[in-house]
């Protein structure tokens, strides 16, 4: 596939702008010159096969991994992204593995999501907690249960809820539908749409390409560490190359689904 000369035109007011981001593990380059933009209030998705570097990209933006390139968040250039600073400035990542505090209660997990705000003197976590509970009534029912004993779907909701406790400007979700039943996947995507309605910008990394393209405004395809294609989500959903590789089947290579 070739680079499509296109840009995320809907993003007049970019929340996140990365340019030529590179990450290497030792001598192996996992991400090469990736550039991407998320506009305010947009849902932008990154799709691509396993091992393409999607998680690596999110980790680099967040500052968990060292990287080279430019990351501008909320109008400020971050020379070296640093996790705590990114969290403090309103960026939150829901990682692929959820990374919950398994032995702690649901409520403790949620409250810890507000740690950085609390530290900066914004001690409104009790109110935020009620908002999150309103969005996920299930979590309120299970508030005293240990996070590690919950089902996959509840854990994902907890992970998203915990990130929302920080009142993020930009929420980055890494494979939120991973390993979840279709009904719960549907619920997760409903919440993603709801969050956008509330003004949260979202960067969504997904292997469930069809669902992701339906909910997103703009999309990027990442392959072997490089952005291979990009465009408005509905256009990519109709692009024959994407259909062949990620959505449809019956192409001449008998391709069905690549993820």
């Amino acid at each position, binding site marked *: 596939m070739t680079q499509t000369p296109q840009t995320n035109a809907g993003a007049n007011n970019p929340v996140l702008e990365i340019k030529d981001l590179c990450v290497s593990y030792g001598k192996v380059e996992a991400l090469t010159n990736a550039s991407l933009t998320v506009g305010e209030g947009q849902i932008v998705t990154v799709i691509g096969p396993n091992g393409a570097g999607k998680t690596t990209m999110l980790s680099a933006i967040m500052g968990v991994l060292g990287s080279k390139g430019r990351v501008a968040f909320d109008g400020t250039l971050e020379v070296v992204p640093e996790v705590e600073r990114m*969290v403090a400035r309103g960026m*939150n990542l829901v*990682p692929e593995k959820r*990374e919950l505090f*398994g032995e*702690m209660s649901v409520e403790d997990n949620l409250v810890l*999501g507000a*740690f*950085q705000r609390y530290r900066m003197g914004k001690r409104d976590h009790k109110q935020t907690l009620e908002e999150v509970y309103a969005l996920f009534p299930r979590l309120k029912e299970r508030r005293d249960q240990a996070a590690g004993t919950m089902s996959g779907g509840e854990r994902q909701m907890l992970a998203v809820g915990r990130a929302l406790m*920080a009142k993020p400007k930009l929420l980055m979700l890494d494979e939120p539908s991973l390993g979840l039943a279709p009904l719960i996947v549907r619920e997760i995507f409903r919440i993603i749409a709801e969050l956008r309605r509330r003004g949260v910008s979202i960067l969504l990394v997904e292997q469930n390409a069809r669902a992701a393209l339906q909910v997103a405004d703009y999309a990027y395809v990442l392959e072997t560490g490089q952005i291979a294609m990009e465009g408005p989500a509905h256009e990519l959903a109709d692009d024959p190359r994407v259909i062949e590789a990620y959505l449809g089947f019956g192409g001449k290579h008998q391709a069905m689904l690549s993820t």
Partner: protein
Amino acid sequence: MDMSIALILGQDGITNGAIYALLALALVLVFAVTRVIFIQQGEFVAYGALTLAMMQAGTVPATVWLLVAMGVLVTVFDAGAALRAGRHRRAAAVAGWNLIYPLALAAIMAMLPVASLPLLVQVFLTLAIVVPMGPQMYRLMYQPVASAPVLILLIVSVALHIAMVGLGLLFFGAEGQRTPAFSDASFELGTLMVSGQTVWVLVVSALLIGALYQFFERTLYGKALRATAINRVGAQLMGISPALAGKLTFFLAAFIGALSGVLIAPITTIYYDTGFLIALKGFVAAIIGGLASYPIAALGALLVGLLESFSSFWASAYKEVIVFTLIIPVLLWRSLNTGHVEEEE
């Protein structure tokens, strides 16, 4: 041995055991949060006891100069970096805590007649000097290698232990010190005479353990430390930085160490290098708890204390051998319960 001797030995054992329990808790905490094996815990005990002794002797405790020196280094590194990043308020805060505070403390020491102050004020000043060295030490010595393997962190601890013992000799001299008891009262419990200091040790230990429990269960900072121990990546994504968690943990460990030193100084003669053996006994207790379980570590500490006091009666020459070989059945039990091959970092 008759009953009264047994009771005295039991009292000694429980008193020492309470101290070992505090140290064991600190060791478990430090390891769980930072993966550092905190060998220097013992030096904090000795520094606490001997700083208090120096104050009572009417001299300015030399440890305050170490606090000033480390504060200068932290200021150079952190305030410098904050200034370059244009974060002036942060730079001012760093300089305030690491430069102004130690100097103010040194001035107080030089001007006040510290030897004639009430004991509790002296204890407070001792803690004010020794405890901040914990976070300073984390910042200067561990933060640059925080991601290194456990072995490297362990070697750093050992090197710091050696340096702190050397400094201890310089500060306090080779003479041992014993401070006056917190209270001269003693209580009769049946045939047993319980000294006031024993009561102090037990009550303060219990209060401290209770306070720590509240801290970890009720406060967001305490929960943040637990979260870091459970899931480092998850905690970092919440903005709980490893540096913050490390400094907070070292603050608590230094506090526990220095307070333990102040508590046992009236019971045992403390030399500049006594801390190592005391901390090692805390380790034995921590190992019994698998470096993970606080309650088992605390029980282990009482066991170590009792074993030590009874073996010093029966076979005093072999006292240390007996205490340290206690580890072997514990390790044996653990190894029998470890079946499969696991990957280590």
